[in-house]
């Protein structure tokens, strides 16, 4: 017995964190969906979900209940085992990626020395969930949609990986903790040192998660309805959860590698120490707004839920204010706040991009990936390598990085101009059948 306890003790905190992640993530993903709907409505001059709970706050819970009690339909002649397994693979890959992510200096399940590589590896496992799901549905269109989705994902995975390599070059390590530490030590977020790498990763991660403008395989107005067609009810909810969890994972990777992780903006400049008061203040303001609006709700139950939400925000504000009483907890609690704020910003920009731009056609998407993104990411890695060598031979790092980034930008402009020229010469349609 004591041997068992002794065996488990070093693993206690990681187990607690894992349980928290597995329990919280579905709820969090549900609220990210609500957030997306509200952001979409805001950009489209309307209100979004308003009925279920005050301002639609209970919408995710209603959706989850609905999906759980739906009839479980499996298409005829579908491969039962694979049909069951495909969404499970997707969501397992998405959740597994969280084990290497550091949501703050304290909240991390495992600080792997190959952290980033592990996350990339596990994300590439998630592709199987899509391809097997499309195949096992026993429908031509599902299969086509799945194959297209997969082709898109593996094309942009290369670009994303190379963009990440650029950041890892600057950090000098694959471990998430050391990457954040390197940004703190350098005094600058890597987005300023390698802006093109960040941009490349942003675009590649949108394509990885199959979001607009790269969502042709999923779009309803296209002929092929996508790999999720035959999935309904809870199985579909699992796919959906995997998609949104993936979004949060790529946002976390970008925040860790490019946006400084859990460091406060200007973490080393004492002038900006007033920013330390931002976390509790923000939650206080939100709580105040909830309490202000609660009595104005039309129904009593809505007022109660709103007040409850306000109470929750007050609790969070108190948690944020804890570091002022116990300075030791500052890194953990405020670190988590800043990290999640950056993840939220990245996810918001995903949504913003989705509702602004039309969709790419599939061949245009693949052309963009192979003719622009991959060459540019290779050049980016080269350039950053050159910058590091220049730094070692005595140049000021800022000057070296400026020079190499300018060179990469020139290459990018040249690539775009080349693509335009090619399109102008041959026309977008390369062959017109006579008839």
């Amino acid at each position, binding site marked *: 017995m004591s041997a068992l306890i002794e065996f488990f003790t070093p693993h206690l905190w990681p187990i607690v964190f894992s349980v928290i992640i597995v329990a919280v993530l579905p709820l969090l993903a549900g609220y990210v969906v609500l957030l997306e709907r509200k952001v*979409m409505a805001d*950009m*489209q*001059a*309307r209100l979004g979900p308003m009925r279920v709970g005050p301002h639609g706050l209970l919408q995710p819970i209603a959706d989850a209940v609905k999906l759980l009690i739906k009839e479980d339909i499996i298409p005829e002649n579908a491969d039962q085992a694979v049909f069951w397994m495909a969404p499970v693979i997707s969501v397992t890959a998405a959740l597994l990626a969280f084990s290497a992510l550091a949501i703050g200096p304290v909240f991390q399940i495992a600080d792997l020395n190959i952290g980033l590589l592990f996350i990339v590896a596990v994300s590439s496992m998630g592709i199987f969930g899509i391809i097997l799901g499309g195949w096992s549905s026993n429908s*031509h269109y599902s*299969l*086509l949609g799945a194959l297209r989705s997969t082709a898109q994902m593996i094309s942009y995975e290369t670009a994303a990986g190379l963009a990440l390599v650029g950041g890892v070059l600057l950090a000098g390590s694959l471990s998430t903790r050391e990457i954040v530490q390197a940004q703190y030590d350098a005094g600058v977020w890597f987005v300023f040192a390698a802006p093109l790498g960040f941009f490349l990763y942003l675009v590649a991660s949108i394509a990885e998660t199959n979001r*607009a*403008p790269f*969502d*042709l395989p999923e*779009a*309803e*107005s*296209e*002929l092929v309805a996508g790999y999720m067609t035959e999935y309904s009810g809870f199985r579909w909810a699992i796919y959906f959860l995997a998609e949104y969890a993936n979004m949060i994972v790529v946002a976390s990777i970008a925040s860790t590698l490019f946006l400084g992780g859990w460091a406060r903006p200007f973490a080393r400049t004492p002038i900006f120490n007033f920013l330390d008061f931002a976390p509790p203040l923000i939650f206080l303001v939100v709580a105040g707004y909830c309490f202000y609006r609660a009595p104005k709700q039309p129904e009593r139950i809505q007022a109660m839920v709103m007040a409850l939400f306000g109470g929750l925000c007050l609790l969070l504000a108190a948690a944020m204010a804890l570091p002022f009483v116990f300075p030791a907890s500052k890194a953990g609690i405020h670190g988590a706040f800043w990290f999640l704020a950056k993840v939220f910003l990245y996810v918001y920009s995903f949504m913003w991009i*989705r*509702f*602004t*731009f*039309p*969709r*790419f*056609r*599939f*061949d*245009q998407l693949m052309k963009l990936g192979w003719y622009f993104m991959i060459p540019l990411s290779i050049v980016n890695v080269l350039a950053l390598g050159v910058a590091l060598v220049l730094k070692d031979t005595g140049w000021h790092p800022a000057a070296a990085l400026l020079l190499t980034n300018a060179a990469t930008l020139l290459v990018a402009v040249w690539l775009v101009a080349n693509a335009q020229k090619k*399109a102008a010469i041959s*026309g*977008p*349609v390369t*062959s*017109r*059948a006579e*008839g």
Partner: protein
Amino acid sequence: MAERPITGFANIEQTVLGADEIILNMGPQHPSTHGVLRVKLRLDGERILDSECIIGYLHRGVEKIAEHRSYQQFAPYVDRMDYVAAISNGLGYCEAVEKLLGVEAPPRAKVVRTILTELQRIASHLLWLGTHALDIGALTPVFYCFREREEILKIVEKYCGARLTTHAFRIGGLQYDTYDGFEQEVKRFLEDFTAKIDEYEQLLTENRIWVARTKGIGVLTVQEAIDLGATGPVLRGSGMKWDIRKAFPYAAYDKYEFEIPTGQNGDTYDRYLVRIQELRQSRHICLQAIEDIPSGPILGKVGKVLKPPPGEVYHSIEAPKGELGYYIVSDGTVQPYRVRIRPPSFINLEALSKMVRGHLVADVVAIIGTLDIVLGEVDR
């Protein structure tokens, strides 16, 4: 996917995906065919070799019904053809019957008709823009367009009581005079409208993805357009400056100055630009008209029972979709002998087969959208 052979598509081999030619069926229920349209595509892998449209799902026998209704009784039926722009349909029909009767609507009626028809053109183009952008994947413009369309529909509802199938005009003029505040509301809408058009353009015109999805897609040369009988923005997008409002002016169009926007390449992008410019021109016409609405009677001298002398007339107007024509044959009785409607959407739809050749399947929705068809008009 074995099927009976379709006339016109001989020697087709239907095999497993990706290997040889396959036939793909789009519709009749499909989010992007703008109604109940069935399109059969013959594909080589992903490229389209040929297409065939199967229509008639919305056929209601409107032209046959006309032979058994009196002239006034038939007027509400024409609204149901192009239900997106009912007022234009009504204008065409009323003017055709007035030509047959030999009466003219009084000046006040003509000007109010012009204002309402141009507002209807704006509303129709707004719906086109929203749905076309939605098909290509831009999720936001449709809400902005419908916000403006709502303003117009509010004005129309205040005027004649209905938003969609309006029956706004009567043979000989108008039934209702403009309501108090009509000019102010229309003016206020039009003054805000330029900023809104700029908003739509900002989202789409220079957008690299929009340009990539629409430039060079669905090209129709001028000669092909003329040969096929295409009219409206489809013809003007190919480069031909032809507008019935300028060529054979009707209503009060000869009093106002406006331009005819044309395109150059005849692709989807040019037709988009043409329709955006038409929005601006319609606004310009409306503003000129609203400045100076002549006073006077709203209904000309027509009796209660209409018995046009035996004869025939063809009258066409520039509807938002193209040239909408009415060919009415009268045999002297209260009911017309024949009413033949020239539906612009039906004739423009014939161009689909030429326009989709060589494109990818994903372009078909863009091309159907750019033709701006309404199935109520195609099938009648």
